[in-house]
């Protein structure tokens, strides 16, 4: 069984630490990498894909550093970057054949896989059009198709659903779910619903540090007792919004139903609610003023040694 290990992985750019001593393992299944912009998700994925050199630590595939494996590791890899590039004058068919050639697929296999991936991603009938004519959703599907060409054992996707409408998102989720057997799939996103239903494990990244790892239930359990719901007047709702992290606001017959994420009960009539993954995201990544940071604890940007990722690192 394939295993990817991150061993004290660190990436430093001049004065900025993009990834800070991250250690974890990936085995078969779907992993959702959640974090705000600038958390280090893309850096971590690039290190996993051997695009960047780590400053410290290493990435191991079945115990062997991926730098040493080189092309043999990259054969196992399928990658969809956040900034997906393409040659606009190519048709989708030519583009996929080009990628298949670079992935060292045998010619007959390349033809078959290109056809298969075109069908899988719903691009049948559009494959002979120039890529420059494609919509955002079609481009993303093309990106997914190229990532799947070599039947990768490790599939890494960075913000795969950005810019997609709900229908495309659902289609994407279904594709990923159908592929998750016998593979390591790592999806990076800041859209919680993309991973909530399909991820076997969630990893929360903040300021380059891995602060939580576990199933959706385990991770949500960390904020149990910190999610509240209450019905208030619109003026009160506005007041609460200024003081606390508001997960949801809904107008109901002149009143407002407010869902708040906070260590303390915001108002006496607030009731504890069952936490969802979105609440977890808000709890860890809400970047409002110093009052709220104090509610959560220490300065989250302070570098810590030997952080136990099972605890809330605040």
């Amino acid at each position, binding site marked *: 069984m394939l295993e990817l290990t991150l061993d004290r992985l660190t990436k430093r750019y001049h004065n900025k630490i993009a990834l800070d001593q991250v250690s974890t393992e990936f085995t078969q299944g779907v992993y959702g990498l959640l974090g705000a912009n600038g958390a280090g998700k893309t850096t971590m994925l690039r290190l996993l894909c051997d695009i960047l050199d780590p400053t410290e630590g290493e990435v191991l595939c079945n115990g062997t550093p991926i730098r040493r494996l080189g*092309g043999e590791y990259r054969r196992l890899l399928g*990658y969809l970057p956040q900034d997906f*590039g393409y040659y606009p004058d190519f048709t989708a068919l030519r583009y996929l054949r080009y990628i298949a050639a670079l992935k060292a697929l045998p010619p007959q296999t390349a033809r078959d896989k290109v056809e298969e991936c075109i069908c899988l991603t719903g691009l049948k009938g559009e494959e002979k059009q120039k890529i420059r004519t494609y919509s955002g959703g079609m481009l993303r599907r093309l990106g997914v198709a190229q990532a799947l060409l070599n039947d990768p054992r490790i599939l890494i996707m960075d913000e795969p659903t950005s810019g997609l409408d709900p229908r495309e998102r659902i289609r994407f989720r279904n594709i990923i779910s159908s592929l998750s057997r016998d593979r390591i799939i790592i999806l990076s996103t800041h859209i919680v619903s993309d991973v909530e239903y399909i991820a076997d494990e969630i990893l929360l990244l903040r300021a380059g540090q891995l602060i939580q790892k576990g199933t959706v239930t385990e991770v949500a359990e960390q904020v149990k007792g910190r999610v509240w719901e209450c019905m208030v007047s619109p003026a009160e709702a506005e007041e609460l919004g200024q003081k606390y992290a508001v997960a949801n606001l809904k107008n109901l017959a002149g009143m407002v139903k407010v869902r708040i994420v906070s260590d303390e009960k915001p108002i006496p009539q607030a009731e504890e609610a069952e936490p969802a993954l979105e609440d977890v995201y808000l709890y860890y990544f809400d970047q409002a003023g110093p009052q709220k940071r104090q509610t959560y604890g220490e300065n989250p940007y302070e570098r810590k040694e030997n952080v136990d990722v099972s605890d809330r690192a605040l």
Partner: protein
Amino acid sequence: MKRGRNIEPWLKKEWIAEQKIYRIDPDKKEKAMAEIRAEAKEQVLWYQPGLPEIMAGQLQYLSAGYWILQGALLAVMLAVMYWMNRNAEDAMACMAAGSAFAAFAGVTGIQELGRSMAYHMTELEQTFYLNIKQMLALRMILFAGMDLLFLTVLAILTRQGTDWGIGELCIYLLVPFAASHIVYFSVLTLVKNRRARYIQTGAAILSVVISMMPAMVQEAYRTASVPVWTGILVCMLAVLGIQIRTLLQKAAKGELLCWN
């Protein structure tokens, strides 16, 4: 001996009788075959494309623009040099034209080399079996081969209009060629978007203008100047070598590839 011959059939019969008849157990056989199949399935057979196949693949997917530009450049070069050989009275004019074409020769290859960067493909291409460093190296070898062919034709045509030996002429043409490539490699990673083509074309035009300047000085092409030209060429090739090495090292490290 007859006795030996008589014993043999008897021994054979005894021997056959003593042999146990081995019956194949179908269950054991199926189990063994299933294990073999499972082991065989676990074996991963990787397809290893050979260098000719990789090169053919690289050639196949070069942009149409590259071939059109290269063809157009060749056609213009043939036409201009043919006309100059017939009509130009001064060998220096032929030399100036030859130098200009030598300086311009590499710009199509450089633009093709920078195509990955222009279209945000480098990050993705780094994750393939052939990574960016290997692809850049392969493409540089391909383009160098094509440029050398181009320069060979240019040298033959320029020689027809001048009195220099072929060796001397090659040095005079290689200097502007190398100099222009130093400029091209300097601007290759300056801008990582589609505007890069305009910068590279601008650099090419500048290189062409500068390459024609030695032709204004008659003494520059005297035989006594050949060692100076040779020295300049060696220095330029060294600089070019360092630039290529730095580019490939940057590609391996990754910061060259990523946009953010």
